[in-house]
């Protein structure tokens, strides 16, 4: 079982192909963009605080073998509905955030439960199903927010409602809650404001995930994810366990979206949630996660590399092609391309692993 040093190195490169590729792209593009390191550091800090919670919410379904949870968009919707109510009642500051979180929790649980049931019916193709489910629920979300809010659901704040008398406006102003979490514990280091409270929350979530993996439930999820049939024959109730994994992820995504929107300060009622899934999933994949394996390190490495690329590519594109739009489109390509690449690599690797396992079995059994 001894591997030589060069084999070891090769193995390292293969396993980490995606992060290394991104590291290289960024390393080339940073000097082209001309941004100072201090500026990049500050930008990255903001983006980490914005996105980490959302990306972390993907970890538990991966643990349970359900792949990348494209259904996290459902959680984001729940978070936004929470915000609409809070904005309606004109509650500001951290109380507003807390209340939004409280309102969104039962909605996220319900949506997650539903998503879990649907995914249990589509075992083996969870990702594409969750992906379509997100589109479908987007329609339902529009139906509710655009037609039922203000007509069936009472909304008193006229600033929120469209001029026709019902339905929420395209942009919901969250100025009263803007950065209220980030600035809860004021801290400035070298002129850079550090959103300490947000990072504390992110840290707590990381601790929660570490602890969760050590629990019996976490172990059951791992077992279910590794081999559903074996876990079931050992007496683990696999289907409810899978639903639980999706519920936890959906609730975390709702909180993640609340944290995300409070740093932005405004909410595109009908668009803010749409891209959440793509960006979070692309980020975790850039960090070296796969469909079946992901760690907290993957999350942070991924956010840093992915957003670094996001910050520098328009200016780099302008320098290279004389057109900032090329860079814009290029980064759109990267977001989708990295997901495609990671999915292909994963499917590919799974097939070649299977072949290798058979070949090894042949060798050992023919030796007897």
């Amino acid at each position, binding site marked *: 079982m001894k591997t030589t040093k060069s084999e070891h190195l090769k193995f390292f490169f293969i396993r980490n192909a995606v992060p290394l590729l991104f590291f290289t792209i960024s390393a080339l593009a940073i000097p082209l963009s001309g941004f100072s390191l201090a500026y990049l550091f500050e930008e990255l800090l903001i983006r980490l605080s914005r996105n980490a919670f959302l990306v972390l919410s993907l970890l538990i379904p991966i643990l349970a073998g359900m792949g990348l949870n494209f259904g996290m968009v459902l959680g984001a919707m729940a978070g936004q509905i929470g915000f609409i109510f809070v904005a309606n009642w004109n509650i500001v500051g951290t109380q507003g955030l807390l209340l939004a979180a409280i309102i969104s929790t039962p909605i996220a649980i319900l949506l997650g439960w539903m998503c879990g049931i649907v995914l249990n019916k589509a075992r083996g193709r969870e990702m594409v199903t969750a992906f379509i489910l997100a589109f479908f629920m987007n329609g339902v979300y529009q139906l509710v927010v655009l037609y039922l809010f203000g007509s069936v659901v009472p909304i008193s704040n006229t600033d929120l409602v469209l001029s026709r008398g019902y339905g929420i406006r395209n942009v919901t102003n969250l100025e009263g809650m803007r950065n209220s979490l980030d600035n809860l514990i004021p801290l400035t280091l070298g002129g850079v404001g550090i959103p300490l409270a947000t990072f504390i929350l992110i840290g707590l979530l990381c601790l929660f995930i570490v*602890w969760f993996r*050590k*629990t*019996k*439930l976490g*172990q*059951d999820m*791992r*077992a279910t994810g*590794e*081999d559903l*049939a*074996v*876990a079931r*024959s*050992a*007496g*683990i109730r696999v289907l409810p366990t899978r639903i639980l994994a999706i519920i936890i992820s959906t609730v975390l995504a709702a909180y993640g979206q609340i944290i995300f929107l409070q740093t932005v300060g405004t909410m595109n009622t009908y668009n803010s949630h749409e891209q959440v899934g793509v960006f979070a999933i692309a980020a975790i994949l850039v960090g070296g996660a796969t469909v079946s394996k992901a760690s907290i390190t993957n999350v942070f490495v991924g956010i840093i590399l992915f957003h670094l690329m996001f910050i520098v590519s328009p200016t780099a594109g302008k320098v290279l092609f004389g057109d900032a739009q090329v860079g814009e489109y290029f980064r759109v390509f990267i977001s989708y391309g990295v997901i495609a690449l990671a999915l292909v690599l994963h499917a590919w690797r799974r097939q070649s692993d299977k072949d290798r*396992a*058979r070949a090894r*079995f*042949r060798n*050992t*059994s*023919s030796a*007897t």
Partner: protein
Amino acid sequence: MENQPILRVEHVGKTYYKNRVLKDVSFTLNKGSILGLVGENGAGKSTLMNILFGMSVIAETGGYEGKIFVDGAEVLFLRPKDALSAGIGMVHQEFSLIPGFTVTENILLNRESLHHNITEEVFGERLATLDREDMKKRASLAIQKLNVDLDGETLISELPVGYKQFTEIAREISSSRTRILVLDEPTAVLTESEAEILLKSMRNLADAGIAIIFISHRLDEVLSICDKIVVLRDGEVVLDTKVGETSVRGMANAMVGRQTKRIEQTKAVKDENAKVLLEVNNLWVDMPGETVRDVSLRVMQGEIYGISGLAGQGKLGIANGIMGLMLAGGSVIFDGKPLQLNAPSESLAAGITAVSEDRRGVGLLLEESIEWNIIFSALQNQSGFLKPILGGLLHIRDEKRIEACAKQYVKDLEIRCTSEKQKVQELSGGNQQKVCLAKAFETNPKLLFVAEPTRGIDVGAKALVLDALRKYNRENGMTIIMISSELEELRSICDRIAITDRGSIAGVLPASAPSEDFGLLMMGKVDQVEVSA
């Protein structure tokens, strides 16, 4: 109290849909002793084990007759859970281990040790954290009982096959309740040295007070380790004896039984001048569960050649390997020319066709009509049933000829159907098999493999299938290799029969040889049989 048997089975019987598979089975098992359970495939061993382990299939098909006592108290298992809590542990042939988990995690799967803390009080047991230290202790205790060298921290995926088996056994004995352990063919996948270790650790377990039911085809293993032996044949106990009172030959005899029926030799054994149609040398086939390791055989032109052997010994792999369906290696010479392996279309083009043992999975297009199924192979491989259109620019299916052809087979093979347009999935098993045969016949092969042609079909259809094979052999000179676990069936139609064992041919006998000799070959006791190759 000490002498009371831990398990007592009394007059147990079972029928599946009026088909009797077990009849009046009784035996006892004492604490700390090992019982060898022996029988051919289909003798009723698995049904007996299913009853003992409370598999749901038993309750769903109307339960069983007779009584089972554990520790003197009558038990009725409706679910595997009931059997588990009564202390019966079972190690199956297929591993149910999680490859990405360590040995320890697998041994204690869903029985992990937990740290009891406050979250547990609030949220229930599932949010208690795992006590890894205690798990390590419990797992290594179980491994120690087995007395094997197994590291609890190794991942299952990195273990050799034999050690996976040990992990499974350790899982059963780590449960403090387990008092009766059922091992279903545990040595089938082991190397000889691993098998030896396993037998030793079984003895250790028995000495520690666990009663073991050991199912095996390896008669010498059974003789060397068991305290008593029960032989099943056709659902009945034909031998129940202490180990000292029987021999390998005695057991083989009991298993296969003395056939009172005279075998009708259907034709004279092929003449000496017939040429070799198929010559196979050192064939290996990677077919999961039916691995072929090293098979060499010669089949004569015009012969019906039988291949039999116990399940898992590779008889099915031979056909799948030669047909290119499973990864294979070695040399195959067909009709004087070397055959390219791993290319199904090459085998078909050379004139070899197979009727698969997996009728519904590989043999048929269930959702399509009878006629499609029948003509498909001829259409694809010989471009039959096509007609030109657009002045020969394109060739499309000639539905008229297809229909005529299908009608002919429906009549010849008595396929019961509403019409040749009926979907195959609506037919009975026997009629589906006839469609498979028709598909094979239509390609007009020089050599036809037929695997398990009568499995799961009724008596009338059986006779028809065998008659059809006989007829094509006689009238069209089609050479047939028939693979079946039904030895008597093979003996009624074949000229010679090869027996596979551990992925190789144990021997080839004329169909008229005594059935006891076939039994011995199946058990791997080649030295006790005079083989005429």
